[in-house]
């Protein structure tokens, strides 16, 4: 199995420990990753798609061309990158006029997109292409008794009419991956609500954005979870830095936050010192829980 790894922005430039985890975990699962050299921001939908659809498609198309030139499907490790690139790719495949319009823009940088590759999400690749049985076979240190609060993040599930990866009302694929690592995926109130960061809200109105996040964090705290896991670095950043910000205002949150690749790394026997090195919210509770 081979993919072009689309890094995006937040992982390589804020949480490179996630990048390391992705690379090591995929190596263990015998998946070969190729770097998409010279890739840029996807571009971030909450910003670019909000002010100009065509600019969004054009920058996305340039990223797709990089993968097409390598002849590889794209693996995204972020819900935001997945949404932008998947949606753009689907549009180009379905709408010849749009593809021609965008290729006209790309001609200025001597590029052209033919629409020969697919865009896949990390969770989708684990669940559909690799499969939970294979993951189980690679587990060295099962995460027994670990109580995990899964946060799907909006753009892994919705819009279903576009992505069609899981039932957005009763999703299960992420929970099954977590369970295959030996951990327990716990239920909590309003599990499907947004982290509050998307659509530009975190930048435009942090108070409102944090109110949504606080509700989610309170429910997770009440559930007694040992860790929050997502497969979206923007949700990850929201929860990790957000708890730190909320605590400055008198709240008491200390729920460790990890990307699915990092949780998998632990179960696959990779030392936390190699893949869990950067966080605002301490991860001590998680490390203690897995050592019991």
């Amino acid at each position, binding site marked *: 199995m081979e993919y072009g790894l689309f*890094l995006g*922005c*937040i992982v*390589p*430039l*804020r949480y*490179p*420990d996630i*990048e*390391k985890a992705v690379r090591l975990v995929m190596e263990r699962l015998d998946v070969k990753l190729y*770097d998409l*050299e*010279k*890739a*840029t*921001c996807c*571009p*971030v*939908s*909450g*910003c*670019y*798609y*909000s*002010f*100009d*659809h*065509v*600019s969004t498609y*054009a*920058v996305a198309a*340039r990223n797709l061309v990089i993968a097409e030139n390598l002849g590889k499907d794209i693996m995204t490790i972020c819900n935001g990158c997945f949404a932008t690139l998947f949606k753009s790719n689907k549009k180009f495949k379905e*709408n010849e006029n749009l593809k021609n319009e965008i290729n006209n*823009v790309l001609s*200025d*940088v001597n590029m052209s997109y033919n629409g020969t590759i697919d865009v896949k999400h990390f969770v989708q690749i684990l669940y559909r292409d690799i499969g939970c049985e294979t993951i189980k076979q690679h587990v060295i240190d099962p995460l027994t008794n670990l109580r995990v609060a899964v946060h799907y993040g*909006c*753009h892994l599930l*919705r*819009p279903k*009419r576009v992505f069609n990866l899981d039932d*957005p009302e009763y999703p299960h694929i992420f929970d099954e991956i977590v369970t295959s690592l030996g951990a327990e995926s716990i239920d909590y109130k309003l599990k499907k*609500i947004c982290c*509050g*960061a*998307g*659509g*530009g*809200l975190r*930048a*435009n*109105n942090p108070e*409102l*954005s944090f*109110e*949504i996040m606080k*509700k989610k964090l309170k429910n997770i705290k009440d559930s007694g979870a040992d860790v929050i896991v997502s497969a979206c670095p923007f949700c990850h950043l929201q929860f990790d830095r957000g708890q730190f910000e909320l605590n400055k205002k008198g709240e008491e949150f200390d729920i460790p936050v990890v990307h699915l690749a990092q949780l998998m790394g632990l179960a696959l026997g990779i030392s936390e010192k*190699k893949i869990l*090195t*950067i966080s605002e919210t301490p991860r001590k509770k998680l490390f203690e829980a897995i050592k019991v």
Partner: protein
Amino acid sequence: MTGKYKIDYALREQVSDIQHGLNVNQCFQCNVCTSSCDVARFNEKFKPARIVKLAILGIRDVLEEEELWYCTTCFFCFDRCPQLADPTEIILTLRNISAREGNLPKSQRRIAKNILVTGHSVGIEKENVENRRNLELEDLPPTAAKYKDAIEDVQKILKKTGAHKIIRFNFDTMELED
């Protein structure tokens, strides 16, 4: 609603033109979108159904409302809309029109500028280079962060689409205007 509004029925066509196949008129105001909305739980002024209604009625004031920028794009309403009116896409398309009228929030313009200047939405910090080194990763990722010609590509692309005009970015100073 009280007072005088700027009525312009062309607004709904404008929305449909930007987003092919999007039909604002599908909406019959059932309010499933508003009751599915994570933001509406916390802010009583933000109501997706109301935004769609204003678009249908051609009330251009919606383009100047701060609430237009409160949607987190969670797409709950998009999936649950019984009329397939795509409320999230309507909001995002109204944002496109609003941005052209100079209402793009400054925070959004700054992020857009980052991509024009660096190719990425967030900047390169010294601390991150050290973090990468400690993880035995290359100092700079193999992206636009490392290859400057990638940034030139993005600039050429966005110059052609006119993104710089919408965000009011000056290529001579490489800064936002005002």
